[in-house]
Structure formats: structure tokens, C-alpha cells
């Protein structure tokens, strides 16, 4: 318990750019393999890294993971029950029900596809849930030389997202007060509704962005070179961490190779 406490926030404190790079490298590396063993070992590894080193809300993690999980199940069943015609036809049958047949080869292919989906979402969630957007932008500016004009623009926009949701809600209520429900419901009125909501939302987006831009300029923002109060440095342990994650994926490859199950990805769908 004590140790997990000491490591608990390592992932959160990691330099966001290096973390992002780790995730991208991980995705690229794993997209080369196409067998259930490599991917499942890496998946378990990534999940345990997230659990061990990340301080995250598991409720949110589940909430975000569930859609991917459902998608993976969908992938699995379609790929397993309606296999591609170029699969070996002599593969042993696992079960059949009427016209539906599942062969071993089909099963393995479907499992690979499903696991890949889960793997990529687990890697992305590891990044998304342990990274503050502001720090990420700072890191992109400081390590990756992202122009401040763009980065601060994105941050300002990020602030507005919840405001827009709120605005749409109010607008729906307001239109209801005006008596919109009294109109007929058909495709034409649906198009009308889309226009009714999108124009004011766009108008307000433009006005808000204009105001923020004016406020930023008024506070001396030029978008030029700047020195940052909040310095995000790359420390040795960031590289170490990248090593830990990538070596886990390498481990997956090694085990799979040793078991003789390693298959390279060849464009299967």
C-alpha cells in the first residue's frame, strides 16, 4: 500500500509531451502485431501501469472505457461469425448454430481485432486521464515548439466547451417557451431546428472568441516568444517511464515469439 502511494502520481507528473510520444510509439509498435497473445500481454501490462503509477478516477475511466468495450464486442462477433473468405477453411469448428459457424481461425482473428481496439483505447485513456490540458499545452509549447498563438487559442476554446453545452440547454428551454413544440414534426422542421440552434450558437461562439481575443491582446499577448512561469522540463525519469511502457510491449512481443504465436499485421479487417 505504501509503495503504491509513493508511485501513485508518477504518471500524472510525467512530462506530457514525452507521455504523448510514448503513447504514439506504443500505438505504432502494437499496430505491427496481429495476434491475441502479444496484444493481450501488452494490454494487461498497460492497464497495470495505469493502475500502479496513475492517480485517476476509475469511475471516469470505466465510463470512457465502456463504449470502446462495447465496440470491441461488436467487432468480435461480426468478425467471428462472418469471417473473411480467405481464412483457412479447414480450421476446426468451435461451434455452429444454424448457418452461423465459428472456426478457430475466425475466433483468433476476431479476438485480435477486439483486443486491438481495447489496447488503443487503454493507451489513450492512460494519457487523457492523467494529463491536465493546460500542462499539455504548456509542454507542447516548451518542448515541441508549438506556436503560443495556437496553444493559447486552443486553451481559450477549451474553457468554452462547458459554456456551450449550457447555452444549448438554455436555448432548448427558451425555444420551448416561445412555443416551438406547437409546430409540426417532420424533416423540414428538423432542418429548421438545426438552423435555429446552430446560428445562435455560432453567433455566440464568434462573439465570445472575439471578446477573448480582445482581452488577450489588451493584456499584452502578441503570440511571440515568451518565457514561461510554469516550466515543464524533461527529466531522466520521463525517459525511464517511456522505457518502462515500451519494454512492456517488447515483452509482449518476446513472449508471443517464444510461444510461436507472433503474427505480423497484414492488413486484416
Amino acid at each position: 500500500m505504501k509503495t503504491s502511494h509513493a508511485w501513485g502520481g508518477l504518471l500524472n507528473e510525467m512530462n506530457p509531451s514525452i507521455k504523448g510520444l510514448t503513447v504514439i510509439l506504443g500505438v505504432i509498435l502494437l499496430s505491427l502485431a496481429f495476434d491475441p497473445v502479444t496484444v493481450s500481454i501488452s494490454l494487461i501490462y498497460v492497464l497495470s501501469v495505469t493502475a500502479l503509477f496513475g492517480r485517476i478516477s476509475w469511475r471516469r475511466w470505466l465510463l470512457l472505457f465502456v463504449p470502446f468495450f462495447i465496440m470491441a464486442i461488436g467487432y468480435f462477433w461480426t468478425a467471428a461469425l462472418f469471417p473473411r473468405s480467405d481464412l483457412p477453411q479447414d480450421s476446426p469448428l468451435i461451434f455452429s448454430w444454424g448457418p452461423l459457424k465459428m472456426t478457430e481461425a475466425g475466433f483468433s482473428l476476431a479476438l485480435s481485432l477486439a483486443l486491438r481496439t481495447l489496447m488503443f483505447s487503454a493507451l489513450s485513456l492512460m494519457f487523457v486521464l492523467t494529463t491536465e490540458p493546460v500542462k499539455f499545452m504548456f509542454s507542447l509549447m516548451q518542448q515541441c515548439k508549438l506556436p503560443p498563438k495556437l496553444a493559447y487559442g486552443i486553451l481559450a476554446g477549451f474553457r468554452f466547451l462547458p459554456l456551450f453545452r449550457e447555452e444549448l440547454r438554455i436555448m432548448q428551454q427558451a425555444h420551448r417557451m416561445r412555443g416551438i413544440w406547437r409546430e409540426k414534426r417532420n424533416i423540414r422542421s428538423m432542418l429548421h431546428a438545426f438552423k435555429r440552434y446552430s446560428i445562435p450558437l455560432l453567433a455566440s461562439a464568434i462573439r465570445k472568441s472575439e471578446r477573448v481575443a480582445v482581452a488577450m491582446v489588451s493584456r499584452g499577448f502578441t503570440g511571440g516568444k515568451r518565457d514561461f512561469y510554469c516550466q515543464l522540463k524533461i527529466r531522466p525519469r520521463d525517459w525511464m517511464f517511456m522505457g518502462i511502457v515500451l519494454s512492456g510491449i517488447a515483452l509482449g512481443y518476446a513472449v508471443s515469439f517464444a510461444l510461436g504465436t507472433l503474427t505480423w499485421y497484414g492488413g486484416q479487417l
Partner: protein
Amino acid sequence: MNTGLLNQKSVDHRTVVLETKDLSLAFAEEGGEPVFSSISLRLREGDLMLLLGPGGCGKSSLALCLNRVYPSAIDSVVKGGVYLHGQSLEGQDPGAIAQQVGIVFQDVDSQFCMLKVEEELAFCLENIGYPREQIDAKIDEALQLVHLTSWRNAYIHALSGGMKQRLALACALALNPEVLILDEPTSNLDPEACWELSALIDSIRKQRQMSILLIEHQLDAWMPYVNRLAIMGSEGRLIYEGEPRAYFANFKEEARRLGIWMPGAVRLHDQLQLENKPSWQPITREELAELWLNEPDSAKRAVLQQLEQAEASRTAQQDPRRSDTDGTERRGGMGHTGDTGDTDHLMHIDNLSFERSEGKIILDRLSLSIPAGQFIALVGPNGAGKSTFAALLSGILEPSAGRISLAGKALSEWPERELRKRIGLIFQHPEHQFVTDTVYDELAFGLRLQKLPEDAVEERVHSLLEQYRLLHRRNFSPFALSQGQKRRLSVAAMLSDEQQVLICDEPTFGQDAYSALELMKSLRARVDRGLTVIMITHDMELVQQFADRVVVLGHGTIQWDGPPEDLWNWPENDLLDHKLIPPLSAQLRNKLKAALQEKQEAHKEVLL
């Protein structure tokens, strides 16, 4: 008292900090018509200059010219020059200008670009290349100045409106500007936050010898500190620059014609009709009270009588039935349970509670009855749940517990179609309720839904357009109107239906004096026709002038319910607890009463 006037005359040699010479602004796309032209202003050291003008005259644009956002960041044609200590700002880089001219805007939500308080301040300091090692101390200093020290790590969206404005002020001040421009900084705040902010800004101004240009509609909180006045006319020209007192003493008619907001003290002083009225013009609340308190007792009594008479006549004229309905109302108002047979009471709210999905309790067991033909003002601090209450009353939110009934039937049992004919709600931001492409259609929309013949619709719409001064904009898109016009349109569109209960969320927000008065009159006329209006507002002058009944909301329940005159008899500290500040006439009345009473008691003691 005349020393004030002399003082200001004698210090006119103070150095000019900011000066504009023949400044004019035009946008190329609007046919080159100037927004304003030939503005020559002088802001001296330590000045707090108030800039007034009718809605849409270009005050805010002028502010943005002064810190060169026009023309450097927005496409526009600016002629003439802006000089700081005699040096032209033209061609200077925005970082350098931001250190000389700071600005605080009206909209509390769209002037920040970071998520946390500390980040926002660091952003400002980084912009001007402030040494990194010193930023930490500088942030502390700036937060201390605006009393936000303990909020350093807070998220900006979690702050109240007043705190956000203080943060905006801290951001501007962190750059040590010599000139501060305030563009309607208090228009989104409740009265207390408003007085707090003005006092804070004044103390910082004195401490730092700053010069301030203020654009504002709500003047009372600022008048004690204002020492210069500039007025822009409707054509975007400067028509006055000088002493505020002299202007309000001599040009009241002009101000009224232009629709310029005047300080409450000026308006009230003007209304008092007395022989030998002192010719000296008070412009602040304090001055007005002091003026009359120094007059002989007979004058005091006469004023007091007038104030009380004005109140009484207003009450009598507003609702002849009031005495009896309100009598039962006040005694049984709180905790009234819905006896459905009561025809006098249109709506009953019984033990209403509302809880947000995250578990925060907004309203807690609130009960209220609403009769027909009453003008009810709903007041209370920011975040007290006034807007939520309005949404519940109009049936667009479902209560967590309790019941709201209209004519004896619960709101949820009413078919939507019937409910909308009976209860209307005007939202805070007019744009949210526009549903058509032109101003004309917007007004016709409700009438057409009622299946009125087209010629009747045309007639009604035409008269509405005329009444709300929108005739020249009839073919415009609602979104292309000015802020004040949008507000008028949204109200007109809602008023075209004859709902029994109309709820308005800050209907006068962002209006000039003339439009605000027109709007209030049309709401009042509705009430006099026997319909009920419930108005959410922060403006106690409006409450005093138009409302029959005030409901004070706070801590999720009703803190007070009764006629406005009685509310102002509360001790001022209790009022302050609910972020309320009594209107000027009530304040003056109370002060005069207290003074007369004191005298009487002293007199008695002497006799004894």
C-alpha cells in the same frame, strides 16, 4: 460644500496622462460610416472620468481605441491620435501598451483564457516578459490588492461574478498600468458586489495615483469617486467634458433626451418640489442626504412628506385591490398551502425543493402564492437560485420535491400547449429565444401560432414594431441587432402573447435609460390589465418604482416577502446580508426620519 467645486478647478494643472486628438473610428464594411468622430479627451493624473452616452454610441469602441486594439488587432480605420504623456501610442507593440493602459471588460466569462486564477495572472505577466523568478511574488501582490489571496489555486469558473471581476482587475493591475479603462465592470454584479468593487477600485487608484476612464450605466456606486464627466451624443461626438456637477445641474433635459442614465441623487433631487430648493446640485447619495439633513426641520418634514406621499400614491394607483389581497397575503403568505378553491391566487408553490444532479440543493422547501395582477420582484444575491426558480415556475424544470400549481392544477398535469399560453418566460440573454430569420417574423411567430388571420398579424406586428422602436429594422436578422434592440425584440415577442404569468429574468439589463423605462412601463401596463409579472432584478430603484411585492430569495428559501416600502425598513445590515442596498428615496426617507426623531427625543428630554 462648494469647496469641492473650487478644488477641482484649482487642480486642473495636473499633468495630462492620456489624451486623444480628433480620434475617429470607422469600419470599412459598414459603408465607412464613422462609429464616432473627432473625439478629443484629456485624462489627467488621478482622474476618475466617467464616460456616458446613449446605447450604441461607440463608448466601448472608444475604450478599445485607447489601448490600440483598434486598429492593430481588428480591421478598422482609426484617424487622429492617442497620446500617453504626449507620446503617440501608434506603432508601439501591444505588450508595451498593455503596461500603460489596462482594461477590465463587462463580460465576466469571456475575458480569461486560462482555467485557474494563478495561470491567468502568470499569462498576463509572461506576456510582458516579466522576469520568471519574480512572477510568483507579483501574483501574490496582485491577488492581495483585490483580496483574492486564498483563491490563488481556484478554478476561474468556480468564482462568483464579483470575484471574477476582481480577478480581471488584478490581471490589469499586475502590469502596473498608468491608465485603467473600465468597460461596464459592474453590470453583471449584484448591488453589494457593485459597491464593493467601486470602493476597491477607488482605493487602488489613490494608492497608485492611477487615472481611470469608466464606462458604466449603474452610476450610484461610482458617483462618490467620479471627478470628471464626458458625454458622447448619439452621433458619436463628444458633447461635454468637464465637471460632473455642472453637467447634471444644467443639462438634465439633454441627458433625458439622449437616454443617458443619470445618478439616482440627481433624479430624486429633481423630483422633489419645494419652495427655496437649494440650487446646489447633489450628485451622490451622501451629498443628497447631507444636503437635506442640513436644511431646517420644516424643509426636512416637507421632503419626508413628499417621499411618503409619492410612495402612497404609487401604491394606491397601482392596484386598488391591493389592500385586501395583500393583507391576507402578508399574514398567510409564507407556508401557504394550496387551497385550490381560492380564485385570487393564480399560482401556488408548496414546499418546493430543487436539487442539482450533483447533489447541490438550490431551493429548499419553498412556499409562495402568486395572485393575479401583481408585479412581483424576485431579488437576492447572485447564485441564490432566482433563475432556477423562474425555470421551475414556468414548468421547464421539474422540481425534486413539492408542487407548483396553476389554477389549482399541478404544472405537470397541464398540457404543454395550454401551459405555454398561460406562463411565459423571458430569458436573460435575448438571443437564446430567437427562432426566425427576421425581426418581423419574430414578432409574428407567436401570433401565427395562435392562428390569427394574416392581416391581423400584420397590424399587431406593426404596432409592436412602432412601440419598441424597431420599425427601421423590420427586415433585419434578429442577430444583427444591437444589444438593446435584441432585448427589446425579445420582450416584444414575448409580450405579443397574453400569458397570465410572465416571468422576466433581468429585463432591463444592458438597456439605456429610455428603453429601460419604456420596457418597465409596458410590463406595468400588463399588470394593470390584471396579468401577473414576476421580475428577477438587481435594480432596487426599479423594484421601488414598479413592484407591488418583493420576494427576497436566499439560502434556498424565501427570506422575506412583502411590499417594497416595508423591506427598506429593515436595518441596513440585514439588507446587506442579502446583498441588497435600499433605493435612494427609501434611504433618504429613513435618514430624515431618524434625524427628526432624534431631535424630537432630544426636545422631550429638555422638556422633562
